């Protein structure tokens, strides 16, 4: 037998021996990776939709977010969350709305579709906020007066609780005014968020201001006071929950 064949056989035997030695290591690695928690779709989505404002430089504060109470009667409950809360009202609004969209731990308590994304948020000098959502807001919100009202009300109450500069809110879908959210609730109007909103400080016209869209109602906002918004005046004072690590949900607080 030629010498090169001996060499070839020797190399093959050596390769098989190495592979046999490595096999238990490979098996152990496979077992470990199977045990490691895989990133859920929801987790990946949360990471992708984290607002740019959520950075370590911003002061962490308590944000009050409104999700479904789970009572199946259209009521919302306030949940206190520790979040980086920028002082800039636009960044702050983006932060709380993105967290609202990300949803509570219990997916059953969502008020907004998981696929919906906040595309942009603007704040006009008169206190009118303009929230532009992706099309999923309209296409994936369950059709019905109760479900649509709950979706919009959760947005309004979350903004009212966390961004005192927002007086009114106009909701756009992919940059456009739409007739209804999902067949029932009127989105051609501008909703009242907070009648006692803090006036924006006067500032010189900036380049960014000119790009802000004007609210569709040329004659000014037409308020739509939601039942929950009206009811909150008589509700008992909110309790703050103990401090938690940033981004963690505090115990829930039910609100009629």
């Amino acid at each position, binding site marked *: 037998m030629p010498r090169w064949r001996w060499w070839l056989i020797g190399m093959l035997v050596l390769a098989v021996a190495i592979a046999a030695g490595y096999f238990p290591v490979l098996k152990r690695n496979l077992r470990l990776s199977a045990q490691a928690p895989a990133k859920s779709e929801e987790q990946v989505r949360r990471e992708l939709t984290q607002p740019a404002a959520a950075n370590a430089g911003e002061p962490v504060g308590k944000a009050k977010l409104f999700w479904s109470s789970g009572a199946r009667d259209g009521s919302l409950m306030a949940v206190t969350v520790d979040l980086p809360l920028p002082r800039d009202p636009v960044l702050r609004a983006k932060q709380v709305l993105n967290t609202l969209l990300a949803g509570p731990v219990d997916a059953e308590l969502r008020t907004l579709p998981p696929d919906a994304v906040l595309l942009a948020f603007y704040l006009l000098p008169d206190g009118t906020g303009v929230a532009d959502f992706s099309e999923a807001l309209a296409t994936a919100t369950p059709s*019905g007066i109760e479900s649509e009202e709950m979706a919009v009300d959760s947005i309004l109450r979350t903004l009212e609780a966390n961004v005192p500069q927002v007086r009114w809110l106009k909701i756009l879908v992919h940059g456009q005014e739409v007739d209804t959210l999902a067949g*029932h609730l009127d989105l051609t*109007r501008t909703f009242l968020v907070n009648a006692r909103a803090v006036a924006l400080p006067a500032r010189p016209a900036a380049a960014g201001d000119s790009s802000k869209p004007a609210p569709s109602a040329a004659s000014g906002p037409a308020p739509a006071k939601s*039942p929950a918004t009206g009811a909150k005046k008589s509700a008992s004072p909110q309790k703050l929950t103990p401090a938690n690590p940033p981004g963690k949900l505090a115990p829930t607080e039910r609100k009629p």
Partner: protein
Amino acid sequence: MVLDPGHGGTDPGARGTGGIRESEVVVDFSAQTKTALEALGFQVVLTRQSTENPSFDDRSAIANAQRGAVFVTLHVASTGLPGTVRVYVMSDLPASSDTTGLIPWERAQAPFLPLSRRFGDLVQSFLSQRFKGSPRTAQVAAVRQLRTTAAPAIAVEVSSVAVDDRGQLDRMAPGVADAIARGASAFRPSYVVATNPGERP
């Protein structure tokens, strides 16, 4: 009485996993409500009777063309406690500054809000007696269909298309029809129709 079965045509409205379609259910509810109202002497007009889908404005126009009309739009929710029914009236609309006495189409409901509220509370009180777990008073929401309706107007929403069996909803229809008819009957004495066109109620 103008009865408006919501949705229709290519718009099925809410859809249940069991194949229940809001647009079909509300046609049956409207037919039974029509019968109950006619039994009490009301003249009833339907905005649609089968699979057509008039626009919001077309539906409102049917009510706005009548004198002394009362408008009820019927819906079935995707959510909510099954077996309950909620009545909605339009949330606040800014009063018109128009000095001509004409009511702007886009805010046609504005002058009728107090009447709508009264009518809604009456219907909701009858519904809450029949369907346990339903609210006792009408809710407020920015319902698109109500905004352009120049008449006392309410939306009635039944929960929900999420039930397993369509029969559960069908069994609610007589009770809903009866509550609307009794509410309309109780409301009638308090509804003073304007005598001149454009006059506010």
